[in-house]
């Protein structure tokens, strides 16, 4: 691709992003503002994740890109092509082979390793945004670890509905200090974040924030002792590979209510079918 630096961004911009990443890794779960650039993909479609990936990607990396857990969804394809054109790095659909994984809204089923980086695309980095739209206010709350707003929201859920009713983007406490949004992954994926061996990086391009969880960090989903965190998943097995312990997509097969459930992680499903 003529006229563009490796992975599209110029080296100074990458440095700026890496400085933000270093701060983020040093303060797990804390949101670091960064000078997000206009990218050739629209805000809201992964520009933050793309900038983070561009800043950490090297020529010898192997990149996997997934959206909703699948490699072949249109946006994953588009982003993978983008890095194919601008960086020429090796790409893969196999989680185990990747050194950098960019993801929208899922964590792969396969356990990640110390030598891997997972980059999450984040639409809304502020975990308190639904309760308090003012960023000035939420900044103060994080600084003072004043999370009363979130506590009462959980209390109200149990009081009104009998259970905590958050299904995705379930708020977590990182390293026992910062309240963080894990991005809109299903609550089912939250436990994978706890003490993950891989480095977890989060990029929000439109909101211009970066945050991170260093390897082996404690990540706890908010709950009550007597209403413990309970991730939601379909109870059916995968209609293609039979897995019962992976997160499932519901696929409508006809207009009379017919449906089947399949693994959302397409690589995981394929590996299982190949092994069978």
């Amino acid at each position, binding site marked *: 691709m003529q006229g563009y630096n490796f992975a599209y961004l110029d080296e100074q911009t990458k440095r700026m992003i890496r400085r933000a990443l270093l701060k983020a890794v040093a303060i797990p779960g804390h949101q670091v503002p960064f000078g997000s650039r206009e990218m050739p993909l629209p805000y809201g479609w992964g520009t933050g994740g793309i900038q983070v990936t561009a800043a950490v990607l090297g020529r010898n990396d192997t990149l996997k890109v997934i959206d909703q857990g699948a490699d072949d969804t249109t946006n994953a394809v588009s982003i993978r092509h983008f890095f194919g054109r601008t960086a020429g790095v090796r790409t893969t659909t196999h989680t185990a082979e990747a050194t950098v994984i960019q993801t929208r809204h899922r964590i792969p089923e396969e356990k990640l390793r110390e030598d891997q980086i997972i980059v999450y695309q984040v639409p809304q980095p502020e975990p308190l945004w639904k309760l308090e739209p003012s960023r000035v206010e939420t900044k103060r709350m994080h*600084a*003072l*670890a*004043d*999370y*009363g707003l979130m*506590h*009462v929201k959980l*209390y*109200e859920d*149990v*009081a*009104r509905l009998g259970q905590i009713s958050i299904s995705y983007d379930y708020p977590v406490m990182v390293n026992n200090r910062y309240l963080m949004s894990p991005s809109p992954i299903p609550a089912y994926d939250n436990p994978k974040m706890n003490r993950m061996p891989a480095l977890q990086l989060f990029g929000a391009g439109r909101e211009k924030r970066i945050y991170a969880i260093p390897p082996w960090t404690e990540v706890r989903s908010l*709950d*009550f*002792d*007597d*209403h413990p965190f309970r991730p939601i998943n379909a109870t059916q097995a995968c209609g293609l590979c039979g897995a019962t312990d992976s997160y499932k997509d519901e696929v409508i097969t006809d207009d009379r209510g017919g449906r089947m459930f399949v693994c959302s992680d397409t690589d995981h499903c394929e590996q299982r079918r190949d092994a069978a």
Partner: protein
Amino acid sequence: MSDDPILSARGLTLSFGAIPALLNVDIELYLGEIVAIVGESGSGKTTLLNVLSGHLAPRSGIVTYRDPDGAPHDVHAMPSPMLRGLQRSDWGFVHQDPRRNLRMNVSAGGNVGERLMAQGARHYGDIRAQALDWLEQVEIDADRIDDLPRTFSGGMLQRLQIARTLVTHPRLVFMDEPTGGLDVSVQARLLDLIRSLVARLGVAVVLVTHDIAVARLLGHRIAVMQRGRVVETGLTDQVLDDPRHPYTQLLVSSVLQA
């Protein structure tokens, strides 16, 4: 109970533009006692309360708080997170308008439980039980626990605010006209409630009011303010039965004539 005051202020001075709000004010407060600060509007009593509670910085003077270990802290020199931490746990503030201190779109139970959760309480059943207990103590019907405060009367809102404030057993509570704007009968009930809660919990209270009757009912000691100065101070009954300063005499006599 220590011999040292839990809160003491020396030489507090503050002006708003050309208007002097506080002129060299000294005051002391001990655990277990209620000090009532009285005066008309414009006397500086609310400004004093805001300076004492760390919400407003004086131009000169110092406010000293003694923590449970007896160590003194300059309220206006302490780091903001520490002050905020105090304001959420060891201290309480009861506003004249309860809506300022309540989350109006959160249930009564959630409002009372919030400070407990901020301190790390994580058992829903326990939190709810404590909230129920406190609602009972402030004489709010237990079956209102899941109701939103917008369905409460003014008196109920004030009692809910008190429950929310006292649930973490603060040592020091600031009250700004807690019965202002309420019906006379509602006031009386509320004052009784405050008096018994404070006596039972051994809290120290700074209470600001323009109403001499409230001061007489609740205050162990009284400080009379006029135009930014404390003109007279002492045991409530002594000051009100035998006022020395002409302004205090004026205040007391106007009540008797009413």
